[in-house]
């Protein structure tokens, strides 16, 4: 409950080792008792049914809708299974709605933003944790203070800043940098990384220094390899956040050719005349990368999530 856990929080395994699992509210022996068993199975059935209806069915409906013909989709009494599946709806959406372009844009923004966040935030966290400069505490404090700022409150001044960056005089509107640079100012990343680096013993770094390794070399060949778990969690969350972001890209990417998938879908929903079936296919395409990432990295995501709520 206290600190950020850099290593995944141990979670209980599936029912296979249910007997050895931690004790919860209701004990195993209680559950096995006559009437309780019936109650348990009834509850399990109800919860499973509710979950299928509430969380699986809507997604199924999206995919099924994307596979229907426009006529079938428009029926007053909807069909549950597409009568005449149209997988080419996806291809049409990909090409005609220009989804290919927006998809590529979003991938580019997400990967670039991830890379920049890692470089900037790892370097900052390393300096604050291991190089400990004068006023380092103040810098960290000011970075953490930004966690208190709701993104909403900064929207307008941040937009004006991006349109005319002080000192440099750049106009970042319609460039990827408008997404990347503000994303690098991520206090949560710096904090999580610093907390992890703090646990790496200084002796280890000192002995490398005696062997003649420079600070950068130490970061690259000792600190980073030891930090794989935390780098993984930070990376996953960075990519997810970039992919899902809506309001900021809506403001700073005005050229339709440069928009993210989310912003483009919002615009197409309001203006275009594309058939609903293809539009649903577009929604499915926008979701697939996130669902895949979730299924692959669910352990890291779930443990990072519970650690994240304890930030501060």
């Amino acid at each position: 409950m206290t600190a950020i856990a850099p290593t995944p929080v141990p979670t209980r395994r599936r029912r296979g080792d249910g007997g050895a699992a931690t004790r919860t509210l209701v004990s195993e022996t209680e559950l096995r008792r006559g009437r309780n068993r019936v109650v348990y199975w009834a509850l399990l059935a109800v919860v499973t049914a509710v979950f299928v209806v509430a969380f699986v069915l809507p997604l199924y409906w999206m995919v099924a809708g994307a596979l229907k013909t426009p006529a079938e989709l428009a029926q007053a009494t909807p069909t549950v299974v597409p009568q005449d599946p149209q997988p080419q709806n996806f291809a049409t959406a990909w090409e005609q709605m220009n989804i290919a372009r927006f998809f590529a844009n979003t991938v580019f923004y997400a990967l670039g933003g991830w890379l920049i966040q890692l470089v900037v935030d790892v370097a900052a966290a390393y300096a604050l944790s291991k190089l400990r400069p004068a006023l380092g505490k103040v810098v960290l404090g000011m970075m953490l203070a930004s966690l208190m700022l709701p993104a909403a409150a900064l929207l307008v001044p941040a937009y004006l800043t991006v349109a005319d960056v002080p000192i440099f005089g750049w106009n970042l509107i319609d460039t990827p940098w408008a997404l990347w640079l503000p994303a690098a100012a991520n206090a949560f990343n710096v904090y999580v990384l610093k907390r992890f680096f703090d646990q790496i013993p200084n002796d280890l770094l000192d002995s490398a220094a005696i062997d003649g390794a420079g600070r950068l070399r130490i970061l690259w060949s000792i600190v980073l390899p030891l930090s794989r778990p935390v780098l993984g969690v930070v990376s996953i969350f960075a990519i997810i956040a970039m992919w899902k972001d809506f309001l900021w890209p809506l403001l700073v990417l005005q050229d339709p050719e440069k928009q993210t998938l989310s912003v483009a879908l919002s615009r197409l929903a309001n203006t275009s005349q594309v058939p609903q079936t293809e539009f649903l296919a577009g929604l499915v395409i926008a979701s697939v990368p996130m669902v895949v990432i979730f299924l692959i990295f669910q352990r890291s995501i779930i443990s990072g999530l519970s650690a994240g709520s304890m930030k501060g």
Partner: protein
Amino acid sequence: MALLTADKPRTTRTTEPGDGPGTQGRLRRRIQDNLLAYAFLAGGILCFALFSWYPLVRGVILSFQQVNFVTDPYWVGAENFEVLFDDPLFWTAWKNTVVFTGLALVLGYAAPLVLAILLNELRHFKAFFRIAVYLPVMLPPIVVVLLWKYFYDPGNGLFNAVLRGVGLPESQWTQGSGSAMISLVLVSTWANLGGATLMYLAALQGIPGELYEAAELDGASVWQRLRHVTLPQLRFIMLVLLLLQVIATMQVFIEPFQLTGTSNPDTITVMVLIYRYAFTVNQDFGLAAAMSVLLFVVLGVFSAIYLRLTREAQ
């Protein structure tokens, strides 16, 4: 004692800069180390300065200025705030935001807690439940909103088809004046339920099993164990999630923006109005900044409590 402490500064002062070659070398090293450290920090400081610290200050300044992009911004005193208070939409937006936050609490605050307690007791399909409840959180918010728009369609949307099927009266959902707000809250609740549920689940697994065993030995029923063991153990995270939910829902944007538009008085929220002031109808950044400052002050109270709490917990 007093003498000793009085002496101390003097002895340390002799090792300060400029005394002997050894200390000079040390000083140079320290400066070099600091320079190196700040070289590593430079990117971070620059990004924070430009896109976090500076906009905060600029936001406050802007709220007292008129920005028109023809002349330089000039000071107008509290005029922006006066305009805000005279705008009926301003009050509507705040009222709607409070209603949205309140309804979202009613529908979505207890639900994850109840779900998590239930799921923690179920011995089957654990992985399925976890994945299913969190899937909506993973979807891009715009996909969630547009998917629900398709369900809400009063003509041939899924929801009205179901209502027709079971013989209930149909609803206008987002297009009805009375049902619009609750429709938005439903979308938002569905989309965000999973995060809180998984956090409660993690907290539940942190409760030591001995507590339940001891309570059971004392003859406590399941209900009593829930009241006197589970809930007290979850008090901290319940408070944290309450604050996080309030902070997040008060900034609601995408649901009203996409489902009911930026001019609908039934659902316009603070964030939508800020967007409208700055980027669509008014194109007045000063006015939008003034509204942002007010939102910031309100949310700042909740954020401060939140940070206080989580820091104390460490």
